[in-house]
C-alpha cells in the first residue's frame, strides 16, 4: 500500500523541504563535520550522527537534564538547542571527560559514593556537576542541591550525588544524609 507523503500527513505542503546545512562541531577535542537538517537538535546530532550515545534523551524538553553537555565550557540542555546554532563550538560530552583510562574525578566519585542506581541520568549529572565546579559559585551542600536542580534522578540517588560532588569539590562529603534540618 502506498504511504501518503509526509507533506500530506502533516499538512505542510506549503513549506518546501529546506536544504541541509553543514555544521562543524569540535566534540571532545575532535573536529566533526556534519551535513544535517536544520531542525536537528545538538542532542540528536551527538546521538544519531556522531554515535555518542552517552548523552541521554530523557524528556527532550529541557526539564530533566539527562542531555546536559558542556558547550564552550558551559553546561546546557542539548535537547533545546539546534546543532546548526553551535557551528564552530567546543562540545564536551560524558565520553570526553576521562583522560585515557583515568576516569574524571567526578566519574570516580560517583562510583565511590554509589551516586546512581539505573544510571540513565548519570552522564547528565556528571556533565552538570563539571559545569557547576567550573562556575565556581558553590560553597555549601545546600548550594550544590540548588544548582544541581536541573538534573532529575528518578531513582532518588540525590544524597549520594551531592556527596560525590562534595567529595570532588571539598575533598570529602560533609552531609551524606542529605538532610538539612528542614
Amino acid at each position, binding site marked *: 500500500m502506498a504511504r501518503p507523503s509526509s507533506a500530506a500527513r*502533516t499538512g*505542510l505542503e506549503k*513549506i*518546501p*523541504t*529546506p536544504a541541509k*546545512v553543514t555544521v562543524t562541531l569540535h566534540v571532545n577535542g575532535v573536529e566533526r563535520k556534519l551535513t544535517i*537538517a*536544520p*531542525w536537528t*537538535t545538538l542532542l540528536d546530532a551527538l546521538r544519531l550522527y556522531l554515535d555518542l550515545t552517552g548523552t541521554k534523551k530523557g524528556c*527532550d*524538553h*529541557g526539564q530533566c*537534564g539527562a542531555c*546536559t553537555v558542556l558547550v564552550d565550557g*558551559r*553546561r*546546557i*540542555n542539548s535537547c*533545546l*538547542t*539546534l546543532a*546548526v*546554532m553551535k557551528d564552530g563550538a567546543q562540545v564536551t560530552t560524558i565520553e570526553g571527560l576521562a583522560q585515557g583510562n583515568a576516569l574524571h574525578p567526578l566519574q570516580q566519585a560517583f562510583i565511590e559514593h554509589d551516586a546512581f542506581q539505573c544510571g540513565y541520568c548519570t552522564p547528565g549529572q556528571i556533565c*552538570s556537576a563539571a*559545569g*557547576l565546579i567550573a*562556575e565556581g*559559585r558553590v560553597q*555549601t551542600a*545546600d*548550594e550544590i*542541591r*540548588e*544548582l544541581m*536542580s*536541573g*538534573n532529575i534522578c528518578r531513582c532518588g540517588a540525590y544524597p549520594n550525588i551531592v556527596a560525590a560532588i562534595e567529595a570532588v569539590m571539598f575533598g570529602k562529603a560533609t552531609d551524606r544524609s542529605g538532610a538539612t534540618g*528542614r
Partner: protein
Amino acid sequence: MNNFEYTRASDVADAVRRIASDPAAKFVAGGTNLIDLMKENVARPSRLIDITHLPLDQIDETQDGGLRIGALVPNSDLAQHPQIEARYPLLGSAILAGASPQLRNMASTGGNLLQRTRCLYFYDTTTPCNKREPGSGCSAIGGINRMHAILGTSEHCIATHPSDMCVALAALEARVLATGRSGERSIAFAEFHRLPGDTPQLDSNLRADEIITAIELPPEGFAKNYTYLKIRDRLSYAFALVSIAVGLDIEGGTIKEARLALGGVAHKPWRNREAEARLEGAPATRENFVRAAETVLREARGFGHNDFKIELARRGILRALAQAARGTPQSQADKRIR
C-alpha cells in the same frame, strides 16, 4: 518539529529586514522556550532567524547612571554581573529563582521577556485555547486552573506570564529598547506586556518587525531594601504559584518610595500603583503592609483550583514587604522563608 529554513542575521538591520519580509519567521536566541514549543507543534515557524551572532551581549553603564543590558546577555551572566549583584540584587535574585543553571546559561535577556505561558492547555494542541488558536475557547476556565491568573483576566484567557526576571524588571521600572523598520523606540516595562482582553494571542506590544536590542535599568536599584520571594510547589526548578518583587527606599523608618510587583498571578508582571502610593510616606509597619496587600488583591478573582492564590498572594506580599523592610532578602539557595 515542522520543517523550517535556517538563516543567520548579520546585524540588527538585517534581522529587521528578515523578520519583516516573512510574517511566519521567528527569531531564535537561547531557544529554550521556542524550540520546546516547536517540538510540541505549538510554534510552527517557516524560518528561524538566528540572532545569536549579533553584537548585543554587552552590559554598559548609561549616561544617567543606569545600566544597559544587551538582549543576548545570557540570564546566568546577567544574574552574576558585578553591577547587578552590587546595585540591582533584586534582578539577580529573581533570575536565580527561575529555571535551572543549564537553562539560565542558554536563555537570553530579550528572550526571557518573550517566553510564552506554560498554561497546559496552551501546550496541549488537542484542546481549545484562545492564545494558541484565537476564537477556539479557553479550556482553563472551568478546567484545571491551579496555576492560573487571579488578576487582570478576561473571559478569553486566564494564563499567566511565566517569567521571574520580568517581575523584577517591572518593579525596577526597566525600559525595553526595540528596533524595527521605523527605527528604535524605548518601551516602558509596564507597557511592554499585555493583558489578555479579547486578544490573548498577543503577549506583548512588540511589533511584528521589531527586535529587542536591550533592556535599560534606571539608576535606582533598591539594593538596600529588596526581596524576591517565590512561592512554588517544590523548592527549586518550578514555576511560581505566586512571586513577589519588592524594592523600598526607607529613610528613618518611613518609606520614601515603594515598588511591588507580582508574578504568577496575571498575564503580565502585576503592579498596582495605588498600593505603592499607600506605602509611600508611611512607616514600614505590618498595618500598612496589610493595607497595601488588600489594595493589590481587591479585584482578585479565583477560578476554582486557584482560589488559594488570593490568600497565598496576600500572605506573600506581607512577608516580602517585611523581608525588604528588614533588609533580609529571601535567599535563593537556602529556601527557608523567614
